[in-house]
């Protein structure tokens, strides 16, 4: 759906059909700008074309996927999305209790993640591979920020150590889940580590 700033469409309309309502400042501008169309005959097409012309400058207004949007709304507050083609991982929850959620986009349903979420951990970032098998999660637990790798088929969670030591923040998984890019804070400097996973 194309959109245009309402002010400009209004301006074009005024220029044509409602010349009597033209504000004084615009009237002065029109007098000093002979290149602008003055007749309603020319101005009306401009009023019609303005939104179309402007849509090329401003882009298109996206529309969220309807059914999925309602599903996500049911989760409550949600943030930190990570998309693979079939899977959407995010952090969501209500009342300040947040957990990692993995949504199957084909079925538009969350899938269970046994052993991943725990009530005393606060997830901060999540990444998922293309098959939905591996999830990398940065979480805060007992005052520490840690990076863990979760394998869904094994329902197993393994810590990934930062070497040299550092505080992980944002992460990205290669589609096959075999490489992980991690933003790490070391000595006040943000760096990116690339970690090969077996």
């Amino acid at each position, binding site marked *: 759906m194309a*959109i245009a700033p309402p002010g400009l469409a209004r301006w074009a309309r005024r220029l044509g059909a409602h010349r009597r309502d033209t504000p004084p400042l615009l009237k002065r501008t029109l007098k000093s700008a002979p290149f602008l169309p003055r007749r309603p005959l020319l101005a009306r097409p401009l009023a019609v074309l303005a939104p179309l012309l402007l849509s090329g400058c*401003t*882009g*298109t*207004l*996206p*529309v*969220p*996927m309807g059914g*999925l*949007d309602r599903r*996500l*709304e049911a989760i409550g*507050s*949600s*943030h*930190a*999305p*990570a*998309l*693979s*083609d079939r899977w*959407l991982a*995010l952090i*969501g929850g209500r009342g300040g209790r947040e957990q990692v959620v993995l949504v199957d*986009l084909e079925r538009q349903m969350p899938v269970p993640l046994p052993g991943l979420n725990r009530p005393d951990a606060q997830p901060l970032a999540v990444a998922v591979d*293309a098959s939905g098998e591996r999830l990398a999660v940065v979480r805060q637990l007992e005052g520490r920020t840690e990076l863990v*790798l979760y394998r869904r088929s094994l329902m197993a969670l*393994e*810590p*990934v*150590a930062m*070497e040299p030591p550092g505080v992980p*923040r*944002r*992460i*990205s*998984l*290669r*589609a*096959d889940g*075999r*490489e992980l*890019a*991690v*933003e790490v804070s070391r000595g006040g*400097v*943000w*760096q*990116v*580590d*690339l*970690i*090969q*996973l*077996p």
Partner: protein
Amino acid sequence: MRQHRLHPPAPTPPNAEGRFTGSALLRSVVVTGALTAMLCSGCGSWSWGRRSAGPAGLGASNRQDPALSGDGRLLASVVERGGRDTLLLQEQPSGRELPLRHLRRFQPHRSPSLSWNGRYVAVLIQQGNRRLAVIEDRVNGNLLRFPLPGDQEVERLSLAPSGRRLALEVVHNGIYRVQVFDLANQLEPDLPAGMLSGGSATPKAAGR
């Protein structure tokens, strides 16, 4: 790149009498100790091959917001250039910087995301007082913009490797929500090499 591999120690040979000599015993203790230390260093966590993403260019100290392409060939990150957070797209492992047509301005950049072969680069840009999600198509040079209604602000994004969907983290009235948008009618799919979609996209041409 530092590799951490465990090798089993060679068995310490006994001497001709079938007994360990002093030096053989010492060697055995050293090897066993080293092996124990290596095992303990990996206790409770995996210790895999890893490396730094390397230099981020002249004058850049911080590197944030990493995003790998689906095939792992490209790495996008945000570095400081001229005091402004700027998207950097690099080949891996060479570190060669790849040019971007539209994304040399509209800083600060945030939250980059790449498609499978890196044909599409999605990122948040700043245009005036609004933050905007955009996708640059590196094959045809187009820039696709995703303006949101005026009362919504986009905080982060994630592009599906195929380029078929885009997820936005949107804040509205202080509430954070993830919304997913279908791009099937707007972008050709960027698929792994050898996989052809029903459309006209040829993945081998993408991202080169």
